[in-house]
């Protein structure tokens, strides 16, 4: 790697550190809120997978394809042990 390579990787590292310090926490908090909303959505359409029938299954099925990628995370979060130490930064 030449000198230009070193400089550009330094620049990249610096901008990443700045992003991490200034924004990553905010983005994470927003994403977390976003995730709770997504999970509420999944609960509404897939509630009866966990034993809470909410939306008639005919219409759940129509929305199901969109929820597929999040179902695993949703179940993981739903069954994961959690307490309020998670609330601070988790």
């Amino acid at each position: 790697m030449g000198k230009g390579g070193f400089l550009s990787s330094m620049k990249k590292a610096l901008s990443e550190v700045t992003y991490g310090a200034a924004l990553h926490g905010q983005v994470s908090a927003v994403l977390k809120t976003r995730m709770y909303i997504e999970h509420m959505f999944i609960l509404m359409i897939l509630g009866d997978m966990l034993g809470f029938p909410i939306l008639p299954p005919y219409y759940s099925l129509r929305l199901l394809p969109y929820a597929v990628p999040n179902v695993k995370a949703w179940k993981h979060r739903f069954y994961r042990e959690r307490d309020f130490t998670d609330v601070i930064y988790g």
Partner: protein
Amino acid sequence: MAWGLRDVVLRDGGPRMVIFAGKGGLGKTTSSAALAYAAALSGKRVLCFSTDPQASLSDIFERDIFGKGEVEVARNLYVVEIDADAKISAYIAEVKQRIRDMYKLEEIPAEIEAYIDSSVAEPAMYESATYDAMADYLARGDYDLYVFDMPPFGHGIRMLTMADVLTSWVEKLTEVREKAREYDEIASRLKGERLIKEDEILNELKAIKDKLTTFTDFMRDKTKSAFFMVMTPEMMSVHDTERALQAFRSIGLTLSGIVLNKVLPKELGSNPSPYISYRYKQQEAVLKVIEEKFGDLVVAAIPMFPREPKGLEGLKEVAKHLVDGVTRVW
């Protein structure tokens, strides 16, 4: 008071949707078919849709229309008898295919497939599939008049209320999606990206909602739809009808009229058979009760026929009473 449905239903600017409700075996399907035929004869393009799981339209028109989609049985008269089971299977297959296409999967994740398959067995699926087909035809708007019959009474009411429940769920879901989208947008703004991806779920929800509201709009609008109860001159039917009227009122629907079916014709009153004349006397008594209780709501009377009316000829005969009101009971 005019007898017969002609003035109510077949006039210009009359309702575009007519529903016959009532218990099984009272002649709803026959009434729907007869009205549909009369409307077709008057020049309207008519769809007659039976939600009854007992495939009775096939019997009435004497041809197999079950699960065949819209079948033209006479000029301008189209008949549908839905095969809900087949519809559900096709629907399920479509959902699965969609998942495979969307995520380029060879196989659907096992737990999701199991979930889809298990939901087929839900009794609500059957109702929803029927209802959905009904709403679909209505939303497409290809016909001048839609005539539906509603199978055994409880189910009929549920279908009406389900539309409301569903609409409010869809509104909730839409709200949730919009919020999710807002947060997506905030996160990508903070990251310095631009969010271009559209939320397809929102479009999907809007499509569902539009379909449902077309249906409920029709139902709630008295100029667009008419509801008739079908009953027979028997005390049992009187009680059922009273209860139904209450239920209708509680969900905010106005009944357009009651059709009395299987009325013993007057000449039977002088029949020498003590069995028949006793039956006739009993009917007289019940009719009195009906007049007291429902009075002007009764808009047509169809006599008891010696044979079950079948085919277009039979329906023409029924329509004389139902539509043109040749039989009066008081």
